[in-house]
Structure formats: structure tokens, C-alpha cells
């Protein structure tokens, strides 16, 4: 079972890495050639390839450059005992992670509250959803600077504005998933509760809420990824100096492509870890509820 799934994955990864190296050679070749021409030297093919894969500011950094940078800014820093220095991705990752988690918590709480309202209140059912959908049609890049500036003007800085942008993105999948989940019990199950003269609270806690669990976890995964995007976007407009978003921005200011790519990878690894963690909690929870076989 393990080997059967590992082999295809490995093949795909190998193919991507090969393509990546090929792309790096092609995209960085120009600069190598120009430099050689300026210096008036002839380069052999091997020398060209070697140079394209070891430039300081390549158009496309090679995989090993990104991995080296990732190691230098994480593991190596830990070994030096400076895991939380300004040059450490662990430090920047932590900044982004804290905003992500706070935003995720706010967004999830808001999303669940709205979903409960929508399912139980006709007025909210009619009015909330259109606004929720409208909120997601506005590009986050347009609205993020406004949120930051407005909050800044009333003295709110740092973690909270970023978390609010995170929450803005992550509440939506939770609302949609939870509304669907809370409405998933069929007419017969609801009738059964009526024959017991069950109260609204009892129907909610004994039927609607447990039925919604699989839906909730699915939307939490989407919401977590959206939260991370929100936190990174929230770091862009202010010219922040801390966080993965700030690393991306600084990298692009100074043409530090290796730094950009390593920040991108750090973000991707962070997202995968967080979503995987939710998946794990989902498995454990559903298993304990007896819903997973």
C-alpha cells in the first residue's frame, strides 16, 4: 500500500525537479552568456550549465539553491541558537503563523456563528449569504491596504490587522460548509426529533451539529489555506519587515529571487502542515464519533 502510493508521487516529484532544472538553465542562460561576452571568454556547455545553476540573482533559482537557502535560514539558524533572529525563516514564519492562526480562529468562529444564524433565522437566511458572497468578490489585494490603513489610524497595529484580513478570507468557506452541514439532516430525521417533542437546542446539539462535522472539517481545510494567504497578503501593503510576506516583498525589491522562492516554499510547507494537521484532527474526531469506518 505504502510503496504503491510512494512510487507515483516520487515519479511526479522527479519529473518536476527535472523540468525545474531545465527551466533554470534556459532562463538563466542569457545572463551567463552576457557576462561571458563582456569578459570576452568562451564557455563550454558544462561551464554554462554550472553557472546558470549557481548565480546570485538568477531569474529562476535551481532547486538546490532554494533548499540550501531554506536550510541556512532555518535549520542552520537553530544550530547557531539564533532561531528567532531577523534572518531566520523560522522567525518570519512564526510571525505569519501567529496572524494566520488568530485569523483562522476569528474566521472560523464568525463563520460558524453566521451559519447557525442562517439556519435558525429566516431573516438572516435571506440577508447574510448575498453579503458573504459579495465580500468574496472584492479582490483581497484591493481591500487589504484599506483595512490596514483604517485600523492603523485608530491605533490598531501589528498582529490584529493581518488576522482580520485572514479572517475575512477564511470565514466564507466555513459559512458555506457549515450551512450545508447543519442542513444535512433529512426530513425523516427532523420528524423523528419532532415526535420526541425535542426543543430547538436539542435538535441542534443532538442532530444538526454532529451531522455537520464532516462538512465542517472540509471547510476548515479550505479556510486554513485561505487564512495563510490572507496573513501573507496582509504583510505586503505596509512594507512590513517581519513575516513571510515581508520576505517576499523584500526579496522582490532587491531582486533576491532565491529569497523569494525560499519564502514561497516556507509558506507552502506551512500550509501543507496546517491542512494536514486539520486532516489528522478530522480523522481522530470522526473515528471517535464512530463516523469513520
Amino acid at each position: 500500500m505504502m510503496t504503491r502510493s510512494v512510487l507515483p508521487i516520487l515519479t511526479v516529484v522527479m519529473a518536476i525537479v527535472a523540468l525545474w532544472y531545465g527551466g533554470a538553465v534556459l532562463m538563466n542562460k542569457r545572463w551567463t552568456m552576457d557576462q561571458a561576452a563582456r569578459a570576452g571568454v568562451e564557455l563550454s556547455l558544462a561551464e554554462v550549465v554550472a553557472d546558470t545553476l549557481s548565480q546570485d540573482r538568477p531569474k529562476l533559482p535551481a532547486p538546490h539553491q532554494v533548499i540550501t537557502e531554506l536550510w541556512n535560514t532555518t535549520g542552520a539558524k537553530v544550530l547557531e541558537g539564533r532561531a528567532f533572529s531577523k534572518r531566520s525563516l523560522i522567525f518570519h514564519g512564526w510571525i505569519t503563523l501567529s496572524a494566520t492562526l488568530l485569523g483562522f480562529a476569528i474566521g472560523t468562529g464568525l463563520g460558524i456563528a453566521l451559519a447557525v444564524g442562517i439556519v435558525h433565522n429566516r431573516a438572516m437566511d435571506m440577508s447574510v449569504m448575498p453579503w458573504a458572497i459579495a465580500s468574496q468578490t472584492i479582490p483581497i489585494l484591493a481591500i487589504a491596504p484599506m483595512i490596514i490603513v483604517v485600523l492603523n489610524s485608530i491605533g490598531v497595529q501589528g498582529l490584529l490587522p493581518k488576522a482580520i484580513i485572514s479572517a475575512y478570507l477564511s470565514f466564507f468557506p466555513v459559512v458555506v460548509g457549515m450551512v450545508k452541514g447543519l442542513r444535512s439532516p433529512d426530513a425523516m430525521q427532523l420528524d423523528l426529533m419532532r415526535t420526541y417533542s425535542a426543543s430547538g437546542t436539542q435538535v441542534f446539539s443532538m442532530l444538526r451539529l454532529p451531522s455537520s462535522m464532516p462538512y465542517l472539517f472540509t471547510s476548515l481545510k479550505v479556510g486554513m489555506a485561505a487564512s495563510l494567504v490572507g496573513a501573507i497578503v496582509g504583510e505586503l501593503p505596509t512594507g512590513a519587515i517581519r513575516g513571510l510576506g515581508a520576505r517576499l516583498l523584500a526579496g522582490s525589491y532587491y531582486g533576491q529571487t532565491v529569497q523569494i522562492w525560499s519564502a514561497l516554499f516556507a509558506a507552502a510547507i506551512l500550509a501543507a502542515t496546517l491542512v494536514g494537521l486539520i486532516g489528522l484532527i478530522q480523522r481522530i474526531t470522526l473515528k471517535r464519533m464512530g463516523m469513520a469506518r
Partner: protein
Amino acid sequence: MKTPVIKADHLDLVFQTNDGPVQALSDVSLDVEKGDFVSFIGPSGCGKTTFLRCVAALEHPTGGTLRVNGMTPDMARQERSYGYVFQAAGLYPWRTIARNIRLPLEIMGFSKAEQETRVQKVLELVDLAGFGNKYPWQLSGGMQQRASIARALAFDADILLMDEPFGALDEIVRDHLNEQLLELWARTQKTCLFVTHSIPEAVYLSTKIVVMSPRPGRITDVIDNTLPRARPLDIRDTPEFLEIAHRVREGLRAGHAYDD
């Protein structure tokens, strides 16, 4: 004279649908005495489910009067007069069998100890002792349906409403469950209202068979079952049995004559 457990007088029920009104029940009058086992049989759409749902106060008649234990159906529900068994077992997948049966007891506020003893009692009654800790998906369809009957019995309602509870099961399982249901009925003295599409099932189980016909849904015949209460499965081959079955079939055919 004793008052009937269920007394329907000239019940009418009209559903307002997008395609206009649908007369689901028309002038339905019926008395059910305590301890009766009444089967409802008739073609699809003749209002069997609707009648049961009226008794359970899940629908409300648009005309006539309906009394359950001398009360309105809504009051009777508050008094926990009936347990309802749906066509699908409808057990909650996140609860074990025992906790599924405990569901109505939790809602109705029985004490923990009382819940425990009642769950054990009804589990034995439907022959599922030892399966309390299983999840629904670990049980066969017939066992699940038995669990749902146990759930309806748990809070000791004296009326059991069953809407095609064995409709989705194969004949062999169904025979077995019919036998068990009769035994359970004899032991508990409940009043049973039972919807079915099967003539043998109706004749085998009932003390009274109500034949209905559609458009508009109404009662065309009420047949008193003269068979003795103790009924082994092979009673179904006796001439008495076949004669009653024949009457039911005739009643169904007569109802259909109104069609076309």
C-alpha cells in the same frame, strides 16, 4: 363502554401544492381499540402515511376531528403517547445502538440509571442484547430496523406507529421480523398501527385490516381478522388465512375500480 385509543371522525386533509390542492385524506373515520393491531393497506398515494402522520401530529387535518388517548394529537405527543417507526431505520451513525435507543430518553430527561435499564430492557425485547456497543453500520438492515423499533419502545409509549418498517427488507428477514413483532406485541400489549404493501403481512399481523384507496385517499373497507392471536408462520397456508387475504385483495380491487 371503553373509549377508543384512536378516534378519527370524518378526517379531511388537503395539501396545497404548486399544482393545486391534493386531497390526501377524505372523510376518514376509524376507531382503534386498546391492544389492537391495525394494518393499513392500499395502493401508493392513498394516504396511509398521511393518516399515520396525522396521528403523530406531524400533519394536521384540515377537517374532522382526531383524538389520541382522548387528547388532540399534539397533546398526545407531549404525553409521549406514541413511538414512531419510519420506513428507514434512521439511526444516527455517530451513536452506538445503545446510545441511539437512549436518544429519546435523553431528550425526555430520564435519569442516567433509568436510561440504562430501559435500554437494556428494549434491547432484549427486540433480541439485540449484546449489540448495544456496535455502530449502526456494523448491523444488517433487519437488525437496524429492530433497533429503531427498540428506540420507539424505549420510553414506554402505549401506541406504536409503524410506516412500512420492513418495506426495504427481503422476504425471509421480513417473515422473521413479523414473527418477532407479533411476539413483542403479545408481550407488551401495545396498540399498533402498521402500514404495509403486503397482503400476507397485513393478514398475518393484524386484528383489523384497513383497506384504503387513492384520489381522494379514503377507507374502502375495514376487515376484522378472525384468526386466533397465537399465529405460527404456517398459519398462512390455512384456508381461514387465505380467505381473509382474499377479502383484502377484493377490497383493494374494488378501490381501484374508481380509477380511469
